[in-house]
């Protein structure tokens, strides 16, 4: 089995790192417990992004979060991209590496979005094989994140939670539970978010994501939530977080805010609320 510790991420709030916050983070007397970076933004040859990352990694545990590996893709994993990822993970030696249960590349076209897949025996074998390759290449355990869903596949023969449980069992990967994604998917597909959490393999959860979403409607006027990461986390998602932490205990919590990125103080206020949720469960 792979090294599953790597010191890991602390059970504290972290944020998705944005370069515009660099100075604020370094000036903050009590900044966050850790930072997440998107792997693909740090695959250039040099310059400020890598210099900032080197600097931050001396002060903060770093979580490398990939958005372009296309683990759920029908195509083989892109060997060049896997090599770039291996290079990044080798020199940075981050506290954690995670990716998505989704695909983004097909026929050499990269679509820059996390696209859905049906949950079947065929896709299970394929995704498990890709996770094996990633963990083999990186020499460490990876975490896999549950997606935000806007639709379902008639072909699916198993639930998402069963699919994730079986992937974790076969590959030894850990799971990154995004509770905003659970809330978004449950609302969009008409199931109970807490029943999803109860069916989730919670013993595999090593990190929890939180983010904001937008509200829209489908053709029938039913609510359709969009996982935009462009605003504050809403109250029902904080409640779902509390209910999740009651079941898992304290976990590393990440605030994701990727579009309409606010000033540091606003983002920092979200982490204060996340810390309150952790404090409550630790009490």
């Amino acid at each position: 089995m792979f090294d599953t510790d790597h010191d890991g991420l602390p059970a504290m709030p972290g944020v998705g790192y944005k370069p515009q916050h660099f100075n604020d983070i370094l000036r903050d007397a009590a900044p966050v417990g850790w930072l997440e970076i998107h792997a693909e933004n740090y695959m250039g040859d040099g310059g400020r992004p890598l210099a900032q990352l080197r600097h931050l990694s001396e002060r903060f545990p770093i979580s490398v979060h990939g958005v372009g590996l296309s683990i759920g893709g029908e195509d083989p994993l892109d060997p060049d991209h896997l090599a770039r990822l291996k290079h990044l993970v080798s020199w940075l030696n981050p506290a954690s590496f995670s990716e998505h249960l989704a695909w983004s590349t097909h026929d050499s076209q990269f679509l820059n979005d996390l696209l859905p897949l049906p949950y079947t025996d065929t896709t299970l074998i394929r995704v498990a094989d890709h996770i094996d390759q990633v963990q083999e290449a990186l020499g460490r355990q990876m975490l896999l994140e549950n997606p935000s869903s806007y639709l379902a596949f008639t072909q699916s023969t198993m639930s998402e939670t069963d699919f994730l449980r079986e992937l974790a069992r076969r590959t030894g990967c850990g799971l990154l539970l995004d509770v905003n994604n659970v809330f978004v998917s449950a609302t969009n597909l008409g199931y109970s978010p807490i029943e999803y959490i109860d069916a989730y393999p919670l013993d595999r959860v090593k990190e929890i994501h939180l983010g904001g979403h937008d509200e829209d409607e489908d053709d029938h006027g039913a609510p359709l939530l969009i996982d935009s990461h462009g605003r504050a986390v809403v109250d029902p998602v904080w409640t779902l977080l509390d209910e999740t932490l009651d079941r898992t205990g304290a976990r590393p919590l990440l605030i994701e805010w990727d579009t309409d990125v606010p000033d540091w103080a606003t983002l920092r206020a979200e982490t204060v609320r996340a810390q309150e949720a952790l404090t409550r469960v630790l009490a």
Partner: protein
Amino acid sequence: MTEQHSFRAPLLDADRAIPEGLTDGLGRPAGARYNVYRNNVAVSLTEALETGFPAIAKLIGPDNFRAVAARYLRAAPPTSPLMMHYGAGFPEFLKTVEPLAHLGYLPDVARLELALRRSFHAADHTPADPALLQDVDDDALMSCRMALAPSAHLLRSPWPIVSIWAFNMRPGSAKPQARPEDALILRAEFDPEPLVTPEGGAAFVTALIRGESFGSAMTAAGDSFDVGVMLNLLFTHRAIAGISFEDTP
């Protein structure tokens, strides 16, 4: 046709029917829910182009830019997950956009923005010490070879691309004059700076990049070339990565 091919094809083609076998989770057809993905793809790629080509967006206006981007991202979707490289074909594509044909300088300004982005992400280097050139006799100087930093780029243009770029991106910059400008992009630390290359400088830099000797680069630069000005520019921007005095090609 594979499942993911069927799912992908309509993402960038609004005329194609939504894939079959998709529901709303309650058994009804997914319908417009699929458009969430169409929208995500188009918006994220448009934003990547806006981030990469802010001067072009300023020059033609945000609405026109989004319309051009919508055509480009369908004609040339990314082939790599590294969005920092997306848009390499955008300058050439701009030449094919008929309503923009009267703005002849646009493709070259886009090339400048692309070069700035490449410079921003280029490998770091240790700058050469100008003292290496002190106490060097003329023969040794003329036969030495200078390696430019990986972040240094030269872009020749019949248009005043540096001035057009600065006028749109740096408030208070002088109005562009109708003249050709060769852009020299140098990154002293982290921020690439587009500079107007002094007369003869483009030929000089081109020769250095080719690995020609200092003397040969001087000859290429012509009689009106001021080598002192040029070297000062390169050294103050830490753009010389190495000087080799070995007499090997």
